[in-house]
């Protein structure tokens, strides 16, 4: 009896060793190599993206840093004194343009997303058609929206003329799908138990949505709006079609003809033969990059600040 015990114990120890031999590193070299390769692939993808953005920033810094001064922001453009020329009307134009875009996309984007997520009956064909359309619109090239704006907003139905308002409306339509998709995502992230809880207390659907769902989705929606604004600031092609001029020497007015915008102005300067104008264009790029970086930082901060686990 007593002799049998150590024997059995060692038998058990061997069995245990057989089980545990695979828990050590290096037991499965094939998987290890595969894992390293996959990681390298991912890192190189990330690296290419990073190099591209860093190259743009470095180029703008090297080329444009010399022209970053007060005059860059407050002076009017000039076609024969590049060392004094600035972006004043373009900056004011972009500010007005974006203000108009925000005024349009916040109610329209939130409204459309709320309808589609919380009120639309998915079984109806027209609601599915609307959803499909919005998803497709997000991928349409921006120049197409420029043509649309020219035909229906500048001329045609709305007949606003070549004014900032028309530019705002055109850019708003361009970024609206993004806002709607982001807002729907934000609404979907709010658990339905919130809506159910409010409605179980006798709130109407509208009350439950307004007081519970939308406030909870607001940070996510705001993030979508900010990212859309970041995109709107950079758009040049559709603006050229709806009347943004590449060269304006007076301050814009929302409802009057004649305005410019930062990317459009940069395009003008970059196209001139003199080296000084190229420096000016690079300085303009730098300004835009700083603004975009700032806006995106706000979006990231908002997302982190209001992130909630339900």
């Amino acid at each position: 009896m007593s002799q049998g015990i150590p024997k059995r114990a060692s038998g058990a120890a061997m069995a245990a060793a057989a089980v545990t031999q695979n828990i050590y590193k290096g037991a499965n070299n094939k998987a290890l190599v595969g894992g390293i390769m996959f990681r390298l692939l991912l890192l190189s993808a990330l690296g290419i993206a990073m190099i591209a953005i860093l190259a743009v920033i470095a180029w703008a810094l090297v080329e444009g840093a010399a022209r970053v001064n007060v005059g860059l922001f407050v002076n009017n453009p000039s076609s024969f004194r590049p060392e004094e020329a600035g972006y004043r009307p373009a900056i004011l134009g972009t500010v007005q343009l974006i203000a108009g875009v925000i005024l349009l996309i916040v109610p329209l984007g939130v409204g459309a997303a709320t309808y589609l997520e919380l009120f639309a009956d998915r079984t109806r064909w027209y609601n599915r058609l609307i959803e499909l359309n919005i998803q497709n619109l997000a991928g349409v090239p921006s120049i197409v929206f420029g043509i649309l704006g020219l035909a229906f907003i500048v001329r045609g139905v709305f007949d606003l003329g070549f004014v900032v308002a028309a530019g705002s409306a055109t850019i708003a339509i361009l970024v609206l799908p993004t806002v709607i998709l982001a807002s729907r995502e934000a609404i979907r992230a709010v658990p339905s138990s919130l809506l159910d809880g409010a409605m179980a207390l006798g709130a109407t659907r509208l009350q439950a949505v307004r007081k519970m769902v939308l406030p909870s989705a607001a940070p996510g929606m705001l993030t979508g709006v900010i990212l859309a604004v970041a995109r709107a600031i950079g758009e040049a092609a559709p603006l050229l079609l709806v009347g943004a001029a590449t060269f304006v020497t007076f301050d814009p007015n929302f409802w009057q003809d004649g305005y410019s915008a930062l990317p459009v102005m940069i395009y003008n300067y970059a196209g001139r033969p003199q080296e000084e104008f190229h420096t000016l264009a690079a300085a303009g790029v730098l300004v835009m990059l700083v603004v975009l970086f700032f806006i995106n930082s706000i979006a990231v901060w908002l997302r982190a600040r209001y992130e909630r686990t339900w």
Partner: protein
Amino acid sequence: MENNNKVAGNEVFSLSNMSVHYGESLAVDGVNLPIYENEITAMIGPSGCGKSTVLRSLNRMNDLIPGAKVGGQVLYHGQDMYGPEVDPVQVRKLIGMVFQKPNPFPKSIYDNVAFGPQTLGMKGDMDEIVEGALKKAALWDDVKDRLKDNAFGMSGGQQQRLCIARAIAVKPDVILMDEPCSALDPISTFKIEDLMMELKKDYTIVIVTHNMQQAARVADRTAFFTVDTERGEGSRVGQLVEFDETSKIFSNPADSRTLDYVTGKFG
């Protein structure tokens, strides 16, 4: 046995031949069930037999599920609850609901309780309404010093009692509870059970539970549901097997399936 019988009060709900469809599929069928005033009625049965479905049909929360359709008759104090002139929003004001997973609003404790009365435009001093509801839910002493704190900072049991307080604050007639303790520890569970015993003096309570001891402890009457096996392959239609006083269901049920279930042979 005979002298043991409870005296049935008014029928708050009377379900006759009630059924619920989700789209094309029939979830429960042929339910005949009275629910009496100031009692706790428990619904027990294996999962998927339609307990939650029947419960949601009692305050028209089923209306929120696309495709859900209630058939047969549901009378509430003698009125057809699914009549064309009935406003489901008004129904839900009178018949509150507590959910399986505590779902406090992402607001302060105070605002959670005040949300209902404020939204419904109830008259009266809001501080008093909130305090009264929290006291009735046996939560006041726990939270009176942190009413402005976010409700998410409370324990699960406290959150569930907050949800009960929130329901009480709108002065309902009935409180429906769908497995209110399934996410809670035993101590929190006992607290909620105590609370239910207290609340039934003022309210009619219907509770779904998968915990048979819980039904035995708190319920005056118990309804046993199961999936009807006689409807052929592939169909999973819930049915009410037996409804009786709780003591009868657990000691001397009329149906053998009930006996199997309460003695743990099945389910």
